[in-house]
């Protein structure tokens, strides 16, 4: 079948005008972007206002960074709030209609970048100074060796929060793998406390145990994720790690290790259960650390009772993933002044402004030009995992169609699906996404 290609704006307009004939010969632009080259080595103009699509829950450290740049440069950043809980969809909706910001805060994982076709729609930032200093170079913010995104941090570490008092009463250490988790579950159940607090009601936390944490053993150098993306590795391989991870969930459920309301509980409730000591563990990313401090009576009390550790199938390998928060891209808009200013913000934020941001945000820096701030408690636990030599990028970052995994993980959690059936469905979605990405 012969296939005709047109620009988005052209086709959408044509579709409104007619049903089929319009599909036969229109041609348009490049999706709203411009190809005019911007010289990143030239001085940035001043007095320019740029728009920034940013997450509505950006922390003060980032908001302060924007203000500091405005003061430093004489340019203005006009903030456009994107609801944080639905940010990817909201951005895609605006993007699909041809709308573009001058600066975009967005998830820098390869798959998320591909969904906005960033290799064609974003400015290549490879010539900026920060590129050689990034600890995440090659695994996030880049496509085919070119850097399109600047990742300031924080970086999420996927792990397990545990209540130290509950573990002490049960006489067990914090588990680091499937075998020790199952043993700990048996011991903790004897004390009348829920061993593992799962939050299927929020959906995404259901992916943590069988996916983000369990798969750490298998994703050194992003091997598993890239294998799936290339089609060489199948997620539904009956003897593969993903089926094993999902089967572990079924085993733990059958053994009565989860809370009764695992299907409906939200992540906030799961956090509270561990904070209160009514549950021993919950599997969530390090982004949730502030919630545990809010739940506790004091910082010292939380540090004394709550811990954060690594978990994976066998070796206790920590996984991490970059965040949409603090990751910036410069869309091609055709306005060279604004593109230059947006790139200038990234250049400044990753050099002169970076140390102050790291100090304000209390994070492990992603650029080796900054000193790590003096972190303590759960933040120190997460930093230790992130900086360990065996830490790997999250298995999801390169898997096409990963957005469907959450619902499937919940189906296994609530017993609607077997591990193999869920993996089979997931593979179908992966195939769909791989096919969609063929140019």
């Amino acid at each position, binding site marked *: 079948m012969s*296939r005709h290609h047109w620009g988005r704006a052209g086709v959408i307009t044509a579709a409104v005008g007619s049903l089929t004939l319009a599909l036969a010969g229109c041609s348009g632009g490049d999706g709203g972007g411009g190809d005019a080259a911007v010289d990143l080595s030239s001085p940035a103009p001043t007095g320019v206002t740029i728009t920034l699509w940013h997450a509505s829950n950006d922390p003060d450290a980032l908001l302060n960074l924007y203000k500091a740049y405005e003061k430093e440069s004489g340019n203005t950043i006009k903030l456009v709030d994107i609801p944080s809980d639905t940010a990817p969809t909201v951005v895609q909706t605006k993007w699909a209609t041809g709308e573009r910001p001058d600066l975009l805060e967005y998830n820098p994982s390869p798959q998320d970048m591909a969904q906005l076709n960033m290799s064609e729609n974003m400015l290549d930032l490879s010539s900026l100074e920060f590129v050689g200093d990034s600890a995440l170079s090659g695994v996030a913010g880049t496509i085919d060796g070119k850097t399109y995104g600047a990742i300031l941090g924080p970086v999420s570490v996927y792990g397990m929060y545990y209540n130290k008092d509950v573990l002490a009463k049960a006489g067990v250490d914090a588990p680091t793998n499937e075998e020790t988790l199952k043993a700990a579950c048996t011991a903790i159940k004897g004390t009348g406390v829920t061993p593992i607090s799962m939050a299927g009601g929020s959906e995404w936390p259901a992916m943590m145990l069988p996916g983000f944490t369990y798969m750490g053993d298998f994703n050194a150098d992003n091997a598993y994720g890239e294998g799936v993306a290339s089609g060489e590795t199948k997620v539904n391989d009956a003897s593969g790690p993903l089926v094993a991870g999902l089967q572990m969930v079924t085993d733990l459920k059958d053994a009565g290790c989860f809370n009764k309301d695992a299907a409906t509980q939200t992540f906030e409730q799961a956090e509270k259960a561990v904070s209160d000591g009514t549950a021993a563990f919950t599997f969530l990313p390090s982004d949730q650390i502030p919630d545990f401090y809010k739940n506790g009576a004091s910082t010292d009390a939380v540090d004394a009772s709550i811990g954060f550790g690594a978990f994976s199938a066998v070796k206790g390998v920590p996984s991490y993933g970059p965040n949409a928060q603090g990751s910036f891209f410069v869309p091609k808009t055709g306005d060279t002044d604004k593109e230059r200013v947006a790139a200038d913000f990234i250049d400044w934020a990753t050099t002169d402004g970076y140390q102050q941001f790291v100090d304000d945000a209390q994070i492990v820096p992603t650029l080796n030009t900054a000193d790590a701030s003096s972190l303590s408690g759960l933040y120190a636990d997460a930093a230790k995992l992130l900086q360990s030599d065996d830490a790997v990028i999250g298995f999801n970052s390169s898997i096409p169609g990963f957005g469907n995994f959450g619902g499937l993980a919940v189906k296994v959690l609530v017993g609607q699906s077997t591990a193999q059936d869920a993996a089979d469905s997931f593979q179908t979605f992966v195939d769909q996404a791989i096919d969609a990405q063929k140019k």
Partner: protein
Amino acid sequence: MVTVTSPTRHRAATEGASTPPVAGGRRGGTARRWWWFAIPAVALTIVFFALPFLANAALSFTRWTGFSNTISFNGLDNFISLFRLGILGHATVVTVIYAVISMIAQNVVALSLAKALQNTNRINSVFRSIYFIPVLFSPLAAGYIWAALLDPAGPINQAIGFVIPGFDFPWLGNEVSALIMVGLIDGWKMSGLVTLVYIAGLNSINRSVVEASVLDGAGGWRRFRSIEVPLLAPAFTFNIVVTLIGAFSALDIIFATTKGGPGDATKVLNVAVYSQYGQGLYGTSSALSFMIALLVIVIAIPLIWWLRRREVHA
């Protein structure tokens, strides 16, 4: 003297007496003048219904994704893909079940309320207003409220716990009860509006018919079954069609309560549309939207035809 009048002249005189003395041209001009008032409605229908529908129909047959800046015609690939993935069949079944539950809940509750509140007096007016309040709620707010009420540790289970100690059934965590519950929540939210339609229908029934049946010895149930229900046929047509078709566009209540879960137990077509869209698969998302439109047409037209026939019989 006898005056003979030709039949033709007589007919013309008779017609002239019964027809307004308006010249043909002037009457046509009057009719044309009223057409201007239809322009806003026609324009709104074109802009907000016809064009989006046609655009969606066209985009359903394209390879349109976030991964590429070009859109290309791909025939039925999107529909085949959705069918292969099991999304189309599952989401359609869930949507139909949800719509039927919601429609039954709305109409049963609303008809009962309408009978109870049929007479217009001060007390009934207060209750009509109270039952109408949920209609004014944001569907998201309604969903969040019910999600809290139906929480395993929420007030509903606590109330049941007085009778059955330790009762902690996860209403929104069980795949069967979750679908029933979200349908009932939608029914609860909209039944106030449907109630008003039934009240209007009941009050438009000729009192003399009802009084005659009373004189003939018909009891309350017999009057309801044999007189009111048949004469409410136009109200049934409106309410059944509106509630059923309205439920096909469900999204917000489900998002606020179950997000399509547990698993995909409440994943109606619009949730599936959102899910596909969120992954940058705009073409397949459009195809699913198109399916919703077709589903509405396929169900609504025969349903309206059948209900209208009932009205005629009634």
